[in-house]
């Protein structure tokens, strides 16, 4: 389990995150969701011991972050958001030799590396140099580097960035399998669809603070606005939360009937569909992103 207690990080007088108090259950996938600049990466870097907290503390598998950070490093693995693979490295070099560098023998590292490359569909590319791999393949290699160590806790910072949807689904399946196998996974994304597909629990961040923290199901069940109507013009007398989207308007409503009535008032020009995490986030954040 991971618990944070008022965790904060300040950079030259500006808080990246502040007052962060969240819980990550063991054997689950917890998603830090939010737009760029909302504090997701800073949070993960704090828990991965890359950053030292400016305030607060955390507990990672029973160890106190500010006291036991060296011991915590034995329990975690981490895929940084912007990490890149050297062009002369092959997938086998990357996955096998970083395992050796973590202390595994070469034989064991080879076997684990093969297993992970097969699971992530990169085994047949194992001897291809980095420059000859697609962006998606490189991302899978990096993911294998993070998942292959037998760590209890895995931090994945936007692991599917730049990967097409079908490959993302494959990766989501692997991440879900790892959580079911008992690993504690904290994952960041700004992709709300990924959040809905993967998360057991969601933490919505906005400008370095927690907007809401709840199990995904609870969060979606409790969101009163189940439908949205996208309109090209605003009808008069409508009482519903409105999020301006360029020259259109997104109206959040409680039922399909209400949505259809508004659409009718607007002359039938627009679309009605169900809401999800994205609309919940926009509703909570007032429709703005987290860019500072």
């Amino acid at each position: 389990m991971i618990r944070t207690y008022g965790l904060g990080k300040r950079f030259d007088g500006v808080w990246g995150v502040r007052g962060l108090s969240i819980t990550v259950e063991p054997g689950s996938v917890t998603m830090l969701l939010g737009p760029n600049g909302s504090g997701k990466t800073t949070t993960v870097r704090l828990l991965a011991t890359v950053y030292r907290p400016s305030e607060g503390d955390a507990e990672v598998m029973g160890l106190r972050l500010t006291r036991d950070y060296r011991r915590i490093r034995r329990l975690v693995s981490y895929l940084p958001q912007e990490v890149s693979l050297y062009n002369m490295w092959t997938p086998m070099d990357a996955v096998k030799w970083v395992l050796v560098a973590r202390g595994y023998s070469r034989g064991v590292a080879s076997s684990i590396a093969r297993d992970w490359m097969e699971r992530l569909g990169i085994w047949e590319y194992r001897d291809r140099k980095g420059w000859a791999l697609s962006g998606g393949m490189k991302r899978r290699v990096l993911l294998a580097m993070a998942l292959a160590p037998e760590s209890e806790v895995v931090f994945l910072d936007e692991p599917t960035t730049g990967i097409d949807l079908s490959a993302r689904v494959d990766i989501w399946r692997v991440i879900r399998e790892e959580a079911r196998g008992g690993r504690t996974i904290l994952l960041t994304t700004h992709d709300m669809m990924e959040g809905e597909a993967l998360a057991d629990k969601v933490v919505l961040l906005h400008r370095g603070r927690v907007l809401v923290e709840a199990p995904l199901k609870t969060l979606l069940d409790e969101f009163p606005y189940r439908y949205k109507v996208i309109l090209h013009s605003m009808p008069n007398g409508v009482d519903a939360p409105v999020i301006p989207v360029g020259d259109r308007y997104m109206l959040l409503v409680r039922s399909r009937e209400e949505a259809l009535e508004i659409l009718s008032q607007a002359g039938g020009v627009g679309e009605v569909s169900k809401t999800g995490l994205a609309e919940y986030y926009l509703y909570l954040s007032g429709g703005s992103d987290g860019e500072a």
Partner: protein
Amino acid sequence: MGRLNSVLGYAYLSMLWIIREPIWLLNGFVWIVGFFMIFHFWGGSEALINYTVVIITAGYWSMGLNVGGQEYGWNKITRLEEYYIASPVSFGDYFIGITMGMTATSLIYSLPVFLIAHQLGVLHLMPLVILLGAYLVFVGTATSVVIISRVKNPMNISALTNTVSTVLSLVPPLYYPATALPKPLDALSSLLPHVAATEYVRSIVGIGSALPPLHNLLIMAGWGLGLLILIHRYVTWGWE
């Protein structure tokens, strides 16, 4: 075994540029052989013996300062450093791994030098020169690591390390007499670790060292100790 594996793992990772692109070796071999020909033409066998020593001392120092520094700097730029930090590996294992990788790479680059040393009848000098070379890889890498660790954005790190290592590899009395420099600069160059190591070997074999062996040993010890203190004091491994 775990820590030994870690060190070997990082050593191997830091050598991958040459394992996967061995054409770099050809570049190094051509450079070495070409300069042997130039030195032979202009200075005969005495110049060649001098060069046999200097190509290793200055070359190993450069390997640490330039390539070792770039390895560390590029691991920062690519964020692989963050991946390494969130693992059981200590900075010590990581640093020793890079130093070992750089030493092994230097040894491979030195193969033509050993052949020429054999031809010149000075192969017996090589164990001492290689030992000092390994020390110079450590000192060179440590110097770069201390500097790069203080640089917020190391994007231009290759330009920096290339320039510094080239300048420092050309100072006298490595390839030409120290009298070429004004007196104060001459004194400064004698404080450099690769100059001290070169002069130490020269003093041992009597090929024209201007500095006493004790002076050179003290310089080398001072650099080693000083860099260990600086690393301990200034280089962070995450937790920033």
